[in-house]
């Protein structure tokens, strides 16, 4: 490769420009990842200086541990509660709002408001609303003759409660994404469909809207899934994993192990497992985006 003076000057400049970021990436991402891998193979705890290399012991413990299994179950169950709503409700809202010429802006703002709010603060509010004795929600239910629910005290219900709060905070976000996707669909496709006889809403949806939303829908599905697995804030503030580990989701368990019990080695193994899950989602998105929906 012939290097002219201009080329060399450019290369020098390029290295200067990327140096700060590269160094920081090294220190903040690369080295820590390596250390996490390493730590997962030890029994390092912050408290004692002495630690040993234990190989895959942490992983064996992990898979055998009831706490791990419980956290995984809780997280998956919560995801199953959360994801369909996060996807379908936002999509339906987006389609409905798109047709509202006059109120579209107002509705967009109102639905997006929860997205901009600080979840940890609003979680306190939801705790009050869902208070089993004095909360507004149970009060309203009871005026309709429905018995109040023990939203946070009942282990069978607590994940539903958390899902409701998360849905509330996320629906506006997905809705806006779907709206952007819907707006991008060329109007004349619908016109061509009308000429072809597809003016029934069901036909329009399956023949034009849904296929054209492909990339957006994929993105929403993947980011919502990742968000579901990253559940932490509301658990930390409202339930601390309770009652009786019923709401102990994966990230919260990892957090406790690392920063409450200081089992750094074990927590590292947990983190890597978590990374694996995230990685699978990212991979799915990458593959699907390239293959399926490229026009």
């Amino acid at each position: 490769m012939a290097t002219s003076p201009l080329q060399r000057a450019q290369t020098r400049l390029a290295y200067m420009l990327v140096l700060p970021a590269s160094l920081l990436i090294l220190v903040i991402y690369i080295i820590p990842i390596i250390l996490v891998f390493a730590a997962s193979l030890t029994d390092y705890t912050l408290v004692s200086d002495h630690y040993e290399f234990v190989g895959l012991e942490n992983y064996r413990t992990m898979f055998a541990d009831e706490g791990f299994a419980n956290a995984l179950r809780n997280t998956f169950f919560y995801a199953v509660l959360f994801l369909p709503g996060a996807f379908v409700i936002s999509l339906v809202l987006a389609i409905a709002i798109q047709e509202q010429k006059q109120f579209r802006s107002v509705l967009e703002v109102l639905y997006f408001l929860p997205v901009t709010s600080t979840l940890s603060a609003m979680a306190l509010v939801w705790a009050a609303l869902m208070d089993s004795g004095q909360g507004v929600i149970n009060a309203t239910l009871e005026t309709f003759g429905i018995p109040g629910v023990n939203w946070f005290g009942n282990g069978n219900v607590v994940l539903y409660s958390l899902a409701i709060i998360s849905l509330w905070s996320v629906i506006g976000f997905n809705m806006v994404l779907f709206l952007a996707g819907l707006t991008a669909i060329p109007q004349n496709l619908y016109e061509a469909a009308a000429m072809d006889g597809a003016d029934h809403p069901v036909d329009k949806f399956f023949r034009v809207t849904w296929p054209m939303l492909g990339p957006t829908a994929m993105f929403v599905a993947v980011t919502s899934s990742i968000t579901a697995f990253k559940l932490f804030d509301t658990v930390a503030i409202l339930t601390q994993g309770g009652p009786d580990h019923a709401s102990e989701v994966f990230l919260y368990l990892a957090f406790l192990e690392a920063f409450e019990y200081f089992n750094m080695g074990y927590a590292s193994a947990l983190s890597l497992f978590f990374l694996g899950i995230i990685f699978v989602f990212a991979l799915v998105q990458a593959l699907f985006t390239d293959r399926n929906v490229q026009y």
Partner: protein
Amino acid sequence: MAQLELKNIKKSFGETPVLHDISLDVAHGEFVSLVGQSGCGKSTLLRIIAGLETPDSGDILIDGASVTNSAPKDRNIAMVFQDYALYPHMSVGENMAMPLMMARLPLHARLPGMRSITPAGRRAQPEIRAEVAKVAAQLHIDHLLDRRPAQLSGGQRQRVALGRALVRNPQVFLMDEPLSNLDAKLRVQVRAEITELHASSGLTFVYVTHDQVEAMTMSDRVALMQSGHLLQVGAPNTLYSDPAILDVARFIGSPEINIAAGERVAGRVRLGDVTLPITVDGQGPVQIGIRPETISLPGVAGLATAHPGQGPSLPLNKRMVEDLGPEVLIHGHFAHAPDAPVRIRAQKSDSYGTDDALMRAESLTVTLNPQQLLFFDAHGQRLTAKALETVGAT
């Protein structure tokens, strides 16, 4: 009874009127072009015919039946969009099958995945496939049936759009500027194909374009629109040789018609120092339309005009000559009117270029053909003028 009748169509978008009382009849099997500049309302009119827009008032009839309130699919009309509007996620075959599927399958069979399962779907599928194959073969795209639109060239995409429209066996075929996305060479080719298609199918075509050459070469009749009004409807040749108003004369013909200012004096017309051998009614100024291909240059060897004729001569100051290969375009102005540009289009014959008369001369004597002159009053209304038998003298 005409196949398509438009009666008093009016349309405004908000406060802005877009169509002012348009009435037009299209006969069975006719090819009618809606021509005009951007913004004249031709696309809106087409969309109203299609049912994609509703008129504020007026009526649309197809074969005598009013379709003004019918949905597009109920009008037995097909439309080819300017950018083809092909479904990007479907193959060519599926694109073309769409109208048939919508028409033949009940709702439950149209849901995704249900086509092969339901009995109605299973019955209809081979029929649909056969019809699509037939149309595809007609348009020479049968080898593309499995491809996606993104993999096709512009010309191929257009044929798919045509196929999707043809497959419905429509009564009226609408086309919205179908050639504007094609490059020049392809345009000429597809123009011919569309004309052939019209001839072989015998369908009624309504064709929107801003290109008057397309309109003039393809149509049985041309409807010229401007600012939401229908200026004139007639055969291409009629619009060319017998325009009702000046704007029509201006729009048709390339290069644009020359307009010279003249004066009506004692029943005759004076242009500069010359009295034209024309009788005309009325008084006052007159606008003389002189087509570039009707001005002869007797003094220059090897140049002929399309419509040579004996007539009065005038001096022309030449500014520039463009050599276009088989013809030349001469730019200049009449000696008496330096602010009014005049263009002449002349064909070269074998003896062209043997003398340098054209290039050397600064002033040329040109001859007008009184039979070909068009006269309009100050408002652009066409005046009837009769050419006199004898040649006028200066």
